[in-house]
């Protein structure tokens, strides 16, 4: 169990009024009784405590905007391309998670899992500097999504989770999808 897990479990337990011992990495937030507004509350508390900015939609939605319709998901099911992207993105999912037909609604099991949130928080927290870049002084939360150096007063604005996700998807698209798709397109054109 990591420090991030412990802290997140406390947030969840407090918000949903359950005992922290009920919160395990493979627990679903909804199984603990979370309603949609509880998820908003957990999101806000997480952002405040970890100094991060969570994305407002799943990685599949963000990727769908970049890949275009019908590539990652078709008629409610993941395509092979969609499975490939998610298994790359979500190493904490079980090995069999993306085998066979995977309906979009089944993904809730991963998007609402405590372990997925913890991995996402750990990922985003890397973008939040612990020390001031110019003087090395300690950083503290300032107004909104800004942080301020306690020593020199230098301020930074945190990057949004959505922006960071987009960047990851664009890189994945260019590095892994584009070459594969282009090979496919030229093979079709030759025929």
């Amino acid at each position, binding site marked *: 169990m990591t420090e991030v897990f412990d802290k997140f479990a406390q947030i969840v337990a407090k918000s949903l009024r359950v005992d922290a011992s009920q919160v395990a990495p493979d627990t679903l937030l909804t199984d*603990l009784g979370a309603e949609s507004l509880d998820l908003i*509350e957990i999101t806000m508390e997480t952002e405040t405590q970890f100094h991060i900015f969570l994305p*407002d939609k799943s990685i599949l*939605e963000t990727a769908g*905007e970049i890949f275009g*319709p019908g590539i990652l998901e078709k008629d409610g099911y993941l395509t092979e391309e969609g499975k490939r992207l998610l298994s790359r993105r979500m190493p904490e999912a079980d090995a069999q998670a993306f085998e066979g037909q995977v309906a*979009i609604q089944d993904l809730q099991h991963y998007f609402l899992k405590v372990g997925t949130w913890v991995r996402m928080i750990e990922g985003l927290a890397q973008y939040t500097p612990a020390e001031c870049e110019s003087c090395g002084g300690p950083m503290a939360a300032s107004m909104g999504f800004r942080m301020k150096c306690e020593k020199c007063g230098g301020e930074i604005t945190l990057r949004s989770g959505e922006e960071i996700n987009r960047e990851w998807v664009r890189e994945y698209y260019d590095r892994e999808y584009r070459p594969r798709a*282009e090979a496919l397109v030229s093979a079709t054109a030759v025929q």
Partner: protein
Amino acid sequence: MNALGNSVYDSSATPSGLPAGCPLGPWPQSVYCRLDALPYEPNVLADLILSPGEGAQWGSMRAVEKRRHEWLLGRCVAKAAVRSLLERDLDLYLSPTEIEIVPDPYGRPLVSTTLQEPLQPSISIAHSHGTAVALAVLDPNAHVGIDLESLTHRRQDFETIAFSPDERSLLATLSPDVRGEWALRMWCAKEAMGKAIGRGLSAGLLNFHINRADSASGFIEVELRHGALEQCPQLRGKSLAVYTALASNFIFSAIIYQQGAVRMRPSRQEILDYLLHKMGELTQDWDYPDPVSPASRLFTELGFESLDAVVLCTAIQEHYQTPMPFAELLAEIGQQQRDLSIDELTDFVDTHLGGPARSGNVTRRVQ
């Protein structure tokens, strides 16, 4: 069985069970049901009303009691709503176990009964804080969304996540004593809209944009944007009215809209508008010296590569839900070493969209 069915039906459909100005008001063809507590001991109730498939799901649920009970309560109101709808409008009597609520791949609940296919009603279910509601209509093509949230104290700053600056300025015009209530109404309106389109709020909260809230009638107008609009392109340019009401510490919201059963063929101008819009989206970070126009050519002027063309073609087919021979078109262009203007592409799409040409303005029925 009937005794139970009737007691569920009675307890939910008596006037005392309805909130003031409940969603039955604007939609007389619907049936609305509400339950504030399980009418029987949970396992007894499950045995009585669930289908075998639902029973298996109930048996394997790992959730906390609150969640399990609300799920069961949700099944209970949904079945009660469908039963009373069929009784009222078709004089058909089904037992609760003959009605199954099965989620589609996106998670939207579908009604499955022992009746013929065209008679499967549309339904939406919501639960919060131990209360569940359901709204059912007979039309299987109707889009139904209902939501329910308790007015318990929420963090004030939830507004900063749930609403855009425009939406918050809408709230800022309200007096402080009703602001919290209307923030929750606006939230519920988004939720109901998400359920009605069948995809929830997965496209992002801010893509369900609230244009207007009418405090006299309770109607809140929601417009889909970006990702949400991609999920249902037929709602482009539409603002849909979601009904909201306050009753005994709960906010209710509901919407029913119908799409014309016959898909009308878009005009050439509408196709061109869509293509220009889509091009704008695809190429938003590409920095062109001139704006994209109907005469712009994809490859030489707009810098398209073959993959970009494939992405565009896929998007067009998805948008119009019609397969078109793009592969042949692209192959032909490649062989002849020529380019393709947006105008030519418009003609191509226009030619390959079947159905009768439409004259005049949009005639789709949207309530």
